């Protein structure tokens, strides 16, 4: 009772004090000054540039972004272009496979490592080191390994296994799997680290209780531990997902979109139209579609994480 009275009085005091407006601006002045780069980044880059891109995707900008408003024409053209449609399809197919395999392999590896194995840190080091390398390095190494004549296929055939076939980067039907092998090599170790942190975060009591009830280990992992790791799983999905949408360097290094257009991805399409295709409007429309994809992934996540406060 007394407390509320004091607070009210305090509030009233502030609003009637002279120079109230200048106090708002001058209060914490050096903090505001120090946070200026962040404020500018947020307003200019993350908000400003995004709005700019969305707006100009509705114009007929060619070499310079000065075009007039033409509604959804760029988008109609986008989805009438086979290269874009192939890109979107590739991203969906690659994305689905990459997400599932990264999570499954990451989880399996984490479970294996969690069995109190010897040389745990050696195994972890081996599994995570590709993550330290760039996608360019990753792509180029695998390009060499998958070289049809001198790489793995050539070597195996020379060793007498004539039937051995591993020409995925030269085969339009298989090239996505070539990307997948390189992508998984790069990213699964990171997923394993996340999952392992999640596994280690599960209370030992849970394990004891499951053991007392006679639940088999695999069942405990799938039905008890995995649901308890919801936070880590969601984080992993978001990180892997936003990485997939950005997929660019790896494609450039491994296949450069080939053979033909069979491994094109949206990020590459957008880049080419913006910087070498001379049709900025097309590039911006593609970029806006990429943004839309991310929003479709992000909004349910944000809702789960910040909307439903009652959970957890």
């Amino acid at each position: 009772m007394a407390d509320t009275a004091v607070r009210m009085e305090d509030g009233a005091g502030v609003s009637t004090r002279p120079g109230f407006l200048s106090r708002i601006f001058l209060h914490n002045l050096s903090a505001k000054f120090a946070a200026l780069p962040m404020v500018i980044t947020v307003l200019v880059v993350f908000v400003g540039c995004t709005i700019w891109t969305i707006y100009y995707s509705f114009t007929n900008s060619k070499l310079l972004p000065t075009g007039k408003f033409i509604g959804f024409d760029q988008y109609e053209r986008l989805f009438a272009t086979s290269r874009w449609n192939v890109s979107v399809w590739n991203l969906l197919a690659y994305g689905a496979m990459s997400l599932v395999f990264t999570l499954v392999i990451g989880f399996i590896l984490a479970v294996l490592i969690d069995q109190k194995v010897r040389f745990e840190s050696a195994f972890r080091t081996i599994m995570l080191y590709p993550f330290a390398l760039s996608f360019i390095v990753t792509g180029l190494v695998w390009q060499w390994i998958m070289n049809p004549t001198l790489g793995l296929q050539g070597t195996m055939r020379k060793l007498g296994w004539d039937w051995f076939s591993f020409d995925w980067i030269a085969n339009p039907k298989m090239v996505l799997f070539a990307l997948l092998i390189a992508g998984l090599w790069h990213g699964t170790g990171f997923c394993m680290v996340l999952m392992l942190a999640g596994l280690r975060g599960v209370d030992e009591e849970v394990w004891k209780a499951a053991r007392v009830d006679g639940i088999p280990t695999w069942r405990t992992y799938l039905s008890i531990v995995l649901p308890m790791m919801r936070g880590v799983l969601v984080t992993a999905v978001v990180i892997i997902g936003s990485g997939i949408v950005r997929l660019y360097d790896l494609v450039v290094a491994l296949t450069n979109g080939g053979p033909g257009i069979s491994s094109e991805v949206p990020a590459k399409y957008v880049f080419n139209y913006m910087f070498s295709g001379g049709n900025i409007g097309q590039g911006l429309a593609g970029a806006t579609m990429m943004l839309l994809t991310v929003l479709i992934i992000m909004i349910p996540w944000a809702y789960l994480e910040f909307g439903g406060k009652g959970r957890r």
Partner: protein
Amino acid sequence: MSQTATMASTPVTGSQAAVEPSGPRPKPFFTPKKIILYTTLVFFSLYYLFPLYVMVVTSLKTMPEIRFGNIFALPQTPNLDAWVRAWTSACTGLTCEGLAPGFWNSVKITIPSTIVSIFIAAVNGYALVNWRFKGSEVFFAILIFGSFIPYQVMLYPLVMITRELKIFGTLQAVILIHTVFGMPILTLLFRNYFASLPQELFKAARVDGAGFWRIFFEIMLPMSLPIFVVALILQVTGIWNDFLFGVVFAGTQNYPMTVQLNNIVNSAQGTPEYNVNMAATVLTGLVPLTVYFVSGKWFVRGVAAGAVKG
């Protein structure tokens, strides 16, 4: 030896039958389960190690040896010719200066970008925790959300902005871009770290009349070495490995190592020299690999930091 180790690592689950010797029954080391476990782990490890092996082995071979066609084979007479060529004279399709200029460009990009981005993010995190102002949390939320926007969405407007600032195609432009896009994750990192420090220290300094910068430099910074190490690892590897920003903003004469490497391997004319290509690839991977092996556990902490939400 193996049995004692197993016993020590298994927690004692309680002895129901008190008559028998207590503790879990000693297990033999070679159970079927263990064999499967280690076989799987070794199998996966081979998958992860194979490319590194192939990379190094190929770079030490001569071209005739490579054309013979066995990527598994060790080099007959290991020599560093390909490494020297990759460093000094490999062709990118435009010039034949090797990777060395790219390496130095990457150094010139990585060092200032790392310092500037970490400093700004540290100040941001500090202001967000200790000097909240109206709207600071909103800006932070947009910043974090912004880190999920694909770069392609903001790329073209940023090109226009850097052109307006007359820095497009220079090192300053790349440094600026790395600072901007490094900000979300680094700010999050520092914000969470500063929030975990005891607030009494800050309050005491405040009572003693220390201001924003004084508290930051004299109290906060000396206490935040661990998070600086994490941020350093994150930024050095991240910026060194960047391709997109380098290719767009740096300008031809400032291309970082990754861009040069890609040009050497993918746009050089003539017969490809796989040993030179692989030597160049190893060279480009050497800096982040060194950071990775030297930093050990810190690297894990650094990459996992991206997963910790505030």
